[in-house]
């Protein structure tokens, strides 16, 4: 079936990075990009001092758009001035967080924006060799990017002596092969080095110090690098006027699940609420249904109950901080408020579930994902992610024991904070939050008694087979 009809941006959107996505007649080749003002920012950037570009990015308040939301300027600032080792830039195009679908469109429809953003970033960071790590399941995307790189090189935007400045840069596309953990920056670096994608311990392997080939390395998300181009265009201070302090710029969010009109939207950070996003932009849930649960930032983000209420601090008209109570749908799509409500902006992948959905089944689907994607390097995640999956499998098969909800909470708490990388949090937060927010659904499936000391021959089948 042909791709869905091109979407018209919603009036509440502010398209900047996605300005060319779904545009009638817009094609991914460089001629189209140039006709639309492409590479003007690169031409501007190479006239600036690299340190000034870094300063602009710092001033912009740009936070990483890959999921962690770490301030990009601060990350760039970790590169030691006067560094003598080669510095590498890696674009993380391994978009794999369930619920997230934004980088795909940039790669397939507007690849030159990404290339330009990368070249500008490389220039700012004194990088001469950069890699574009793209997930293996985007074969056309990889070809698209390779074509774009060749086109850019032919026009003198890449390769030796870019735009006559003496600045050299090679970008190579590197395809991954189906591992979500390659989205973790040190896992990505290991994968790029030709090894299993085992994330590195920090300290001492901070990428900006000991990254690719043990050299300083900056890893940035696709969308983040595109924002860099726009920051050079408008200046950091101007960019920071979008959104709100500490939550600046625009971001691309994607909504999927039980909404009438799923899709992607580029909005000023925090300019619309979760409710406006789901109900106004996505047409809400189907008639007769209610919102039961929303995962606001990719599957690793803690789930929010449809009827949850939060007490947050907000600025009143006179500038003082007052406490106010809001519901889930009132949460603005930003970084800080979402975090204050116990979840995260993450990668912007919003998944909506209505009242027909079983929360244990939902969690089980995610537990299967995390158990499969765990790299297996460290004890809590390797053992714990599989354990949590087996428990929810057993719950669904009718073998839920009375102790299971508390066990799930305990196991997930034992993983988070004890692992080498953030996958520990990613795999445990779903279980932690689903069990905490929907205790009644888990309790309904956890009715069987387990003897106090299980003999060695006690099998989980016993629990599944036994009727209550």
């Amino acid at each position, binding site marked *: 079936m042909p791709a869905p009809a091109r979407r018209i941006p919603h009036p509440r959107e502010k398209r900047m990075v996605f300005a060319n996505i779904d545009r009638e007649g817009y094609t991914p080749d460089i001629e189209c990009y140039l006709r639309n003002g492409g590479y003007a920012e690169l031409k501007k950037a190479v006239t600036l001092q690299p340190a000034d570009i870094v300063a602009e990015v710092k001033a912009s308040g740009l936070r990483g758009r890959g999921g962690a939301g770490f301030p990009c300027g601060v990350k760039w600032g970790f590169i030691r001035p006067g560094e003598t080792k080669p510095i590498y830039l890696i674009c993380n195009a391994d978009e794999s967080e369930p619920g997230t679908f934004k980088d795909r469109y940039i790669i397939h429809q507007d690849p030159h924006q990404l290339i330009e953003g990368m070249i500008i970033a490389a220039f700012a960071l004194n990088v001469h060799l950069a890699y574009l790590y793209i997930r293996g399941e985007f074969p056309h995307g990889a070809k698209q990017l390779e074509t774009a790189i060749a086109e850019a090189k032919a026009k003198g935007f890449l390769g030796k002596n870019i735009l006559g400045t003496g600045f050299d840069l090679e970008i190579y596309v590197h395809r991954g092969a189906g*591992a979500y953990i390659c989205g973790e920056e040190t896992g990505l670096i290991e994968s790029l080095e030709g090894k*299993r994608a085992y994330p590195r*311990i920090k*300290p*001492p392997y901070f990428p900006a110090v000991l990254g690719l080939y043990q050299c300083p390395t900056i890893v940035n998300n696709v969308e983040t690098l595109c924002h860099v181009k726009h920051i050079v265009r408008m200046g950091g201070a101007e960019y920071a006027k979008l959104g709100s302090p500490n939550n600046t710029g625009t971001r691309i969010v994607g909504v999927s699940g039980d909404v009438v009109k799923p899709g992607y939207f580029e909005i000023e950070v925090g300019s619309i609420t979760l409710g406006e996003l789901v109900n106004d932009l996505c047409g809400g849930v189907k008639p007769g249904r209610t919102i039961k649960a929303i995962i606001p930032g990719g599957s690793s983000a803690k789930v929010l109950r449809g009827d949850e209420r939060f007490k947050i601090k907000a600025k009143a008209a006179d500038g003082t901080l007052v406490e106010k109570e809001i519901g889930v749908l009132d949460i603005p799509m930003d970084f800080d408020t979402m975090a204050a409500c116990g979840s995260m902006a993450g990668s912007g992948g919003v998944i909506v579930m209505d009242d027909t959905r079983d929360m244990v089944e939902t969690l089980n689907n995610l537990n299967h994902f995390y*158990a*499969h*994607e*765990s*790299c*297996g*390097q*460290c*004890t*809590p995640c*390797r*053992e*714990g*992610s*599989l*354990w949590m999956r*087996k*428990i929810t499998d*057993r719950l669904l098969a009718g073998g839920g*024991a009375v*102790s299971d909800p508390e*066990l799930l909470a*305990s196991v997930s708490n*034992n993983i988070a*904070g*004890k*692992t*080498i990388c953030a996958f520990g949090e990613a795999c445990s937060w779903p279980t932690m939050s689903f069990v905490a927010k929907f205790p009644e659904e888990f309790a309904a499936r956890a009715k069987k008694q*387990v003897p106090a*000391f*299980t003999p*060695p021959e*006690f*099998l*989980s089948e016993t*629990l599944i087979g036994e009727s209550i």
Partner: protein
Amino acid sequence: MSNEASTPAPLVNVQIDGAWHQFPKGTRIIEACSQVGKFIPRYCYHARLTSPGNCRMCMVQLGMPKMGPDRKPELGPDGKPVHNWVPRTNISCAQDVSEGLSVRTDSDVVKEARKAVLEFLLINHPLDCPICDQAGECRLQEFSVDYGQANGRFLEEKVKKPKHVEIGPRITYDAERCILCTRCIRFMREVAKDDVIGIVNRGGQNYIACHPDRALDSNYSLNTVDLCPVGALTSTDFRFKMRTWFLKETKSICTSCATGCNTVIGSRENLVYRQTPRENGDVNQAWMCDYGRLAFRDLASPERLLTPIVRGGDQPDWNTAFASIANAFKLVAPGQTAVIASGKQTNEELFLAAQLIKALGVTLHDIVPHTSEGDDILLSADRNPNTAGAKLLGVSAATPGANLPAIADGVRSGEIRALIVLGEDAAQIGLSPFALKNLEVLLVLSTLPNATTAAATHVLPSAGFAEKRGSLINKTGRLQRLNAAVQAPGIARDDWEILSALLGTLTETAPGFATLEDVFQAMAAATPAFAGLNLGKIGDLGVQLPTASF
């Protein structure tokens, strides 16, 4: 290890469980804690390998000094820095101490973290203890007792992985027991320089494997068994042989080459079951090679010589044997005796052999060189453990083996009437049993029969390396000592006792040495290199002799 003076690293102040200490910059947190008596449980960390930080067992709580607005640490009422405590636990194996750091090794949150990690390690671990060789020296057992929780909460089916895999000719691997600490992989890559094992599969299904075209067959493979904290990698030779808690442990050294790796001999009821390396930073770090490690197996050979043998038939007692030897030597004039000694003998034995050489007017004497391919890890090309001692004590020719052709010629021509062979086989210098039959006296000390003992007039059963005491000098001039773990079989005797008695018999004097210590004393008095030393002073780690003495 060099004794050069080097600028000591600056000291930093670190607080551990409330008490302030100082450590050189560059000390790992986990080591610093050990040094002040706070052992941190760990699996993947090993002081001599890189730290991957994957087991998560060595968690501690870290506090960083709170910085004031002047970028200097805020001080509390006791004049010491105040700390901001990191909310989550941190591993202690991959970070060095820093100025003002505070560490809590046994707070509640640390205890909970350890319990959690142990629980995760045990949920898929098979209940193999009753059949697992590691029991008794298993860190999973030990830490479970010390830091774990009593009840299991796991109700699911455990992950099934390959068991008793012949991952190498000397190693059996059990993937279900494996905790993926990767010590084995890192050892093979970083020390054995044979990057032959890796991890296959992903997540909870992963385990250690070799590519089908290769095997874990390096000469250093068995070190991975020592390193393995659980019973995943076990020695096939030792498999199911003996429970570790029954083993008597004797500190000794390996005698299979000139390196002299420090060892522990594990024995029970006079049988040696295994050898493991003993840590000595100046000799073998924490390793030994498989070739030397498994060399104890000959000690229990059913072929062991158990009694003296005279003229191929009689098996008299020692006194009768010595009397026979004394009589036989009456028919030999001074200067008609040659001695083939051995680079495997201890210094004390070589000293006594030298006395014998002098007493019998022997001019032709030497040791038999044994050389083979060495490597640049531990194995020396010189397969004699005490070439240095043989040269120092004047038993070997200046170039070991230089006199052997003359000895062989002398025997064949009949100029040599008596040949004493100490722990070697004359066939190795080309003397066939036919040639040896010409000798008036062929006196052999040996542990096992060979072509020479078959042709001998007098065979005296001696002791294997694990059955005797003595000292040897390794290739770097380090004086180290052997300890006896088991008794020699039958009525075989320690070589020094035999040689001392022989000396007495053949010189018609009373045996001059009551104990091995007496021999060492006499040896030290006659050899400047040993001045001031005795067997006790050699200690467990040996003593480096001054190089001028060689």
